[in-house]
Structures are given as C-alpha cells and as structure tokens.
C-alpha cells in the first residue's frame, strides 16, 4: 500500500462564514454537515410521526383528514429513511472512516462536498410538496402503482427528489469505498480494519448496487404517468406487481443499508466498555458479508400476500429465515465480548446494550413475518409497524445515538453531560417501548396500518402507544440540548476519551484538528493502537 501523505494545498486560509460550509472539502466539516442535516430531518420526520400518533390517540377522526394522514405516513417514512438515518450514517463515516484507517481525508474530497449538498435541495423539493395544492404524496413511501400514479402535481417532484437522493447516496458510497480500499495507512490490512469500517465497506457496496435500481423503478413510474409507457399496466402487457419486485430488490438491501453501519458502531462500543477485544472478529466480517449477500435474494418476502408461485414463496421464506443465522452470530459475539469483561456503563454503552436487546426483539418479530402462512395474517398490520420500528428506532437510531455519545468528545473536545445522557437513555428506552410494544398486540389483533381510524377495541393500546410516542418524541429535545451543551463547552476531553478504546481515531487530539494524518501512521502487528484485534 502506498504511503498516504497529504500535500499542503489544503492549508491555505479557508473562506469564512457560510461559504466555508458551502465549499468545504474537509471530511470533518462535511461529516458535521451531514450529522446536523440528519438531526434536523429527524426532528421534521418526528413531528410528522407525532401528527400520526395524535390522530390515532383515540378512535374516530379528530385532528387531520384522511388524505393528510396518508401524506404524513408517506412523508414520515421518506424523511426518516433518506433524510435522517442514511445521512447520519454517511456523516459518521465521513468523520470516522478517515480517522480510523489513518487517511488524510476522504478519497475524493470535492465529490464528498457534492454528495452532501445535493441532499438539502432534494429535501427542499420533497418537503415543498406539502405546500402544493394537491398536497404531498400519499401513496406510502413505496409508491406502489397504480395508486401512486393517481397522485397530484406532487408526483413528479417526489420522483425527482428521490433521483437526487439516489445520486447523493451513490456518490457518498463510491467515496467511502474508494477511501477504504485506497487510503488505508501502511500495514492496515483488510482484516486489521475496525468493524465500523468493515461494515461501511459492505454497506457502500449495497448502496451502489441498489440505489440505481430504485432510480430505474421510479423512472418507470414517471414514464408510465407522463410518457405513455405501460410497465405497470396490465392492459399493455405490464404488471403493477412488477414494480413491487423491482422496488423491493432495492428495498430489502436498503433495510440492511440502514442497519449494517449500526452493527459496526455497536461492535466498536461494546469492546471499549467491556475492555476486551471484540469476540470473533473474523466471524463478524463474514456474518456481515453473508447478510449483505442474502439481502439480494429475499426481497419478495415484502409481498407474500400479492401472490406468487408456491416455489417462489417457499424460496423467499427460507432465504429470509437463514438471515437469522449470521445475525445471531453477531448478537452472540456481542454478548460473548461482554462475558467476563470489566464493564462500565457510560451512555454510549447503555445505548449499545439497549440496541442489542431491543434490536433482537425486532429481529425475532422479523422471523415471524418471514413465515409465509403467518405473514398472511400479519401483513400490513401494526405488527409490521412494530417490527420495523424496533429495528429502525431501537436499532438504527439507538446505534446513531450511541455513536454520537461515543465520538462527540472527539468531535467537540468536550465531554457531554453524563448525567443528562443517562437520563436521555432511560427516558428514550422506556418511552420507546411504551410506544412500540403495544403495536405488536394491535397488529396481532388485526389493526391495519396506514388507516387514520380504527375500531374501538383497539382504543387502549393506541392510547398507550400515543403517550409513549409523545414522551419519546419530546424526549429527543433533551438530546438536542445535550449536543448543544457539549458543543459549547464542558470538561476537556482527552485524546483517548475512553480508557478501553483502541484504534487510530483515539491517537489524535480531542477535538480532532481539521487535518489529521497528513503523514500516515504505520500500523504493525505490535502497535498497540492499531492492532485492532489485540487489546
């Protein structure tokens, strides 16, 4: 591997004010932009969720009309997936991957800037549809035809917003792969990379493989609506179900795009606070790769009820259930890492532990949904909603929270308020379970999702769920405050913030200076910081 020495050009006086942020090519600044954008979208998407929970507080139509309710479910999903979770992970990758592999910056710094700055414009277009006379898209985030084709003027804007988000994601992913494959410090072989880097490498591959497929799918929607094609129209020999196949060929790997980086984060945090090496490093790598491979051959489990040949249903059922094996290996390894560790429970570790337990609940309900005959019962009920919110909120979002607490001292140079962090964790964990656990029962009892009203027998659990929702939602303002407080000051953080932490990112000062590793560190089997496998 070539030594990576940065050259001086970037030490020129940087522009100040807004143009600094508009034109920056620095991975740390772009990482910050991603994270701030993600937090903003998290709050926007959260507000939409609260509209949904407020409407579902009691049976009957009280607050919003059904059309607007549908707009809220659609937009909540699009904003949270493409605006909150994915940019948060890309932001973390921007900040941490160069620091973890000992690179001076991302491989393609200008393109890095572009992949971020497309996003605010994409969401400007998406959110502007809320103010159009026809309203925002209301067909669900999956945009199934023929329903989605019947939307108003907002339809074309949504399609193009998705195109922009796709371009942004693909460029971000290309940059991350190029950085990992081409910019590692001398001596950092692939199997000496931190798990967060490994998981992002595989995630980036998934992104490049499936985002173009989504682009193709929505392009076909666009031409069906405006240019007279009949991809999804049986009258012309097409098939609306075909859209679902193409969409979920994107959609299922997309699910893992939103969880594999989380696995990487948890695999960093648990060893640190257990003061032990990660148990089964190599098996973790292979498990991640297996999950990624399987993600390409399970898509139709999202559509068992639309009908497919029996052989197809069986194949997709078994392939889906096999995913529990590599995922189980991961959970086992996390638990085994903690076994006889000298553990402490700072906020990042609390969120990581919350992740392990609650994500596993979401994983298990996923296995239930994979079984074809039971899925016929659960499909499109609140059971599905409970399932994917356990994996996305207590999975992906909890991991992002854990990552922020874990690395924010490195970013700001100050320790966050540990007491408030712990309050945030317990408040979130309790309220999120009050919010989503009852939805399992609602779904099993038959309450359909994406409907603004429901039968009175569902009233109690919906009431409990809504109370949990408001508690969780407003509780996140505490997180915002903790972050602001930490940016403004606090106890000075040391270079190695956590005494059990290993890895190159802890060898640079806190806060990390704007330019790090201009001269690459050398990683050998014996360097204590870098020999990731040895603690």
């Amino acid at each position, binding site marked *: 591997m*070539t030594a*990576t*020495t940065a*050259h001086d*050009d*970037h030490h*020129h006086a940087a*522009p100040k004010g807004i143009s600094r942020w508009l*034109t*920056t090519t620095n991975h740390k600044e772009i990482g910050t932009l991603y994270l701030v954008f993600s937090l903003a979208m998290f709050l926007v998407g959260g507000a939409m969720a609260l509209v949904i929970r407020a409407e579902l507080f009691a049976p009957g139509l009280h607050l919003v009309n059904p059309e607007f309710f549908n707009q809220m479910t659609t937009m909540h999903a699009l904003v949270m997936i493409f605006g909150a979770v994915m940019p948060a992970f890309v932001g973390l990758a921007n900040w941490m991957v160069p620091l973890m592999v000992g*690179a*001076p*910056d991302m*491989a393609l710094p*200008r393109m890095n*800037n*572009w992949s971020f700055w*497309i996003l*605010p*414009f994409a969401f400007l277009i998406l959110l502007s549809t809320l103010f159009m006379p026809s309203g925002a898209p209301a067909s669900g985030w999956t945009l199934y035809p023929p329903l989605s084709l019947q939307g108003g*003027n907002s339809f*074309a*804007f949504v399609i*193009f*917003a998705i*195109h*922009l988000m796709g371009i942004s994601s*693909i460029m971000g992913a*290309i940059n991350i792969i*190029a950085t990992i494959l*081409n*910019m590692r410090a001398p001596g950092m072989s692939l199997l000496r990379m931190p798990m967060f880097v490994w998981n992002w490498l595989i995630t980036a591959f998934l992104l*490049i*493989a*499936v*985002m*173009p*497929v989504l682009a*193709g799918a929505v392009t*076909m929607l666009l*031409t069906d609506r*405006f240019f*007279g*094609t*009949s*991809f999804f*129209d*049986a*009258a*012309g*020999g*097409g*098939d609306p*179900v*075909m859209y679902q*196949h*193409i969409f979920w*060929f994107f959609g299922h790997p997309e699910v893992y795009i939103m969880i594999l980086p989380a696995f990487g984060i948890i695999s960093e945090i648990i060893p640190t606070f257990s003061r032990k090496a990660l148990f089964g490093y190599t098996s973790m790598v292979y498990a991640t790769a297996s999950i990624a491979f399987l993600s390409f051959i399970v898509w139709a489990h999202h559509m068992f009820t639309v009908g497919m*040949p029996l052989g197809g249903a069986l194949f997709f059922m078994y392939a889906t259930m096999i995913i529990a094996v590599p995922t189980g290996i991961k959970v086992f390894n996390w638990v085994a890492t903690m076994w006889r560790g000298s553990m402490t429970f700072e906020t990042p570790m609390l969120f990581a532990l919350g992740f392990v337990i609650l994500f596993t609940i979401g994983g298990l309900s996923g296995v239930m949904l994979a079984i074809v005959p039971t899925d016929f019962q659960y499909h499109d009920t609140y059971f599905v909603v409970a399932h994917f919110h356990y994996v996305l909120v207590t999975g992906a979002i909890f991991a992002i929270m854990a990552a922020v607490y874990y690395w924010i001292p490195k970013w700001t140079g100050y320790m966050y308020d540990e007491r408030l962090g712990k309050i945030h964790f317990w408040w979130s964990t309790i309220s999120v379970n009050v919010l989503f656990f009852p939805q399992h029962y609602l779904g099993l009892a038959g309450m359909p999702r994406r409907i603004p009203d429901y039968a009175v027998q569902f009233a109690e659990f919906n009431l409990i769920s809504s109370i949990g929702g408001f508690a969780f939602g407003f509780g996140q303002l505490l997180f915002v405050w903790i972050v602001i407080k930490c940016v403004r000051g606090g106890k000075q953080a040391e270079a190695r913030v956590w005494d059990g932490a290993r890895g190159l990112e802890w060898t640079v000062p806190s806060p990390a200076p704007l*330019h790090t590793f201009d001269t690459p560190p050398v990683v050998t089997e014996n360097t204590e910081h870098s020999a990731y496998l040895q603690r």
Partner: protein
Amino acid sequence: MAQGSYYVPATSKWPIIGSVGLFILVSGFAKWMNGSDLGPWMAAIGASVVIAMMFGWFADVIRESEAGMYSNQVGGSFRQGMIWFIFSEVMFFAAFFGALFYARIFAVPWIGGEGTGVMTNELLYPGYLPVWPTNGPENLGGDFKTIGAFELPMINTLILLISGVTITAAHVALKKLKRNALIFWMAATVSLGALFLCLQMFEYVHAYQDLGLTLGSGIYGSTFFMLTGFHGLHVTVGSIMLIVITLRCVRGHFEPKNHFAFEATAWYWHFVDVVWLVLFVFVYVL
C-alpha cells in the same frame, strides 16, 4: 509537495453550483411535466448550470493533473471511483432488463392465462394470446411491427464492436507515445460512435413512421425504447467523453504511464459496448 503525497484540494465552488443546477433542472422538469410554461425554461437554465459546472470542475482537475499534482494513489482513488460508477450504471440497466425479463417470463404469460392466471385471463382478457412481442391485451398504441435483428441492429453491433477495437488501438498508440496514430484511432472511435447514433436515430424514425412502434406500444414499446433509449443516451455521453479526450490528445495531454482520463473513457466505452451486446441479444434477437 513531496513524492507520494495525496492531493487534498482546497475548497471548491463547483459542487454547490452543481447542486443548485440540479435543483433548478429537476424542479423545471417536474413543472414541465405538470404543464407549466415556466418548466422548460427552468430545465434549460438548470441544465446549462450543470454543464457549466462540469466544464469548470473538469478544467480544474485537468489543470491539476497536467501540473503533476496527482500521485499514483490519487489515480487509484479515481480508478476506484470510475469502476464503482460504472457498476452503478450496470445496476441501473439491470432494473430495465429485469422489467423486460419479468414481463416476458411472468407478466405476459399470466395475463394470457398461464399458471394461476387462468381466471385473470377468463374474466379480464378472454381470448388474449400472450405472444411476444406484444402491446398487451388492449392493443395499446395500435398494431406495430418490430425491427429485424439482422438489419440495422446487426450493423450497429458491428460498428460498436469495431469501435472497441479502435479505442484499444488508440490505447496502444498512447502507450507507445505515437501521437498521430493515437489521434487517428481516437477520431475513428468518435466517428463510429457518431455513426451508431445516426443509425439509431434513423431506426427510431423508421419505427415511429413506418412500423407503428412507439413508446406507447404496450410493454414491448416501453421496454424497447427505454432500453435502447437509455443506451443511446449513454453512447451520447460516451461520445462526448471521447471527443474531449481526443481534443486533449491533440493538445498533447497524457503520457504513456499517466492517462487516467483516457482509461476511464475507454472503460466507459467498453461498458456501453457490452450493454449493447446484451441488448442486441435480448431485445432484438430473442
């Protein structure tokens, strides 16, 4: 700047200009489709901004490259970037090929009553015979004929295959630093690309005017024009890249061991070539 250093550019205004351009472009497009008179103008302005951005951005990169600011490692990043970009393009085409295969193998036979589609056929489209090519049970777009594989498409296949040879000849000439041969072979490649595009346009006109085959000709017309259309768009982009590279060759750019832009363009051209071969087999022949 030391040997083996990694060039991290200072700030750049091009990405944000590109973002604003894309924003205006797609908003204009969306307005256009909704019937706004403002739409086409906005789209045109946005496209101009994006093109200007590309000129500026590539000019910066070429200037830096010619100034010798890029180490081998920077070249490695560029190569990674191009390889994965082409992979993303492959997956984009995969979506449309997937639609073609799904329609031919599943959707059309099912509407015709095969498998579990018996009642669909009986109730919705009795008497519909699922024979490819088809524009569906409702004969959308009216009767049409298809383009024979071994007429123009065969010639187009040969043109693209030969262009793959000529660009390789150019590469060999570049490695041996024979500038005149390099420019000759590049010019030949550009001409073949242009010839291909002309024949494609001729074929489209023929399809619309004589054969009754249009984008609205049911699933056949949809898959035919979207696949060949997106391919043609990529040939257009590839040809523009070839022209730029040719002009740079004329100006004396590139060295036997340092010509990433040339290689990237050649890879892209081969990718376009391979897509055409798959397309020729599955769209025209079979």
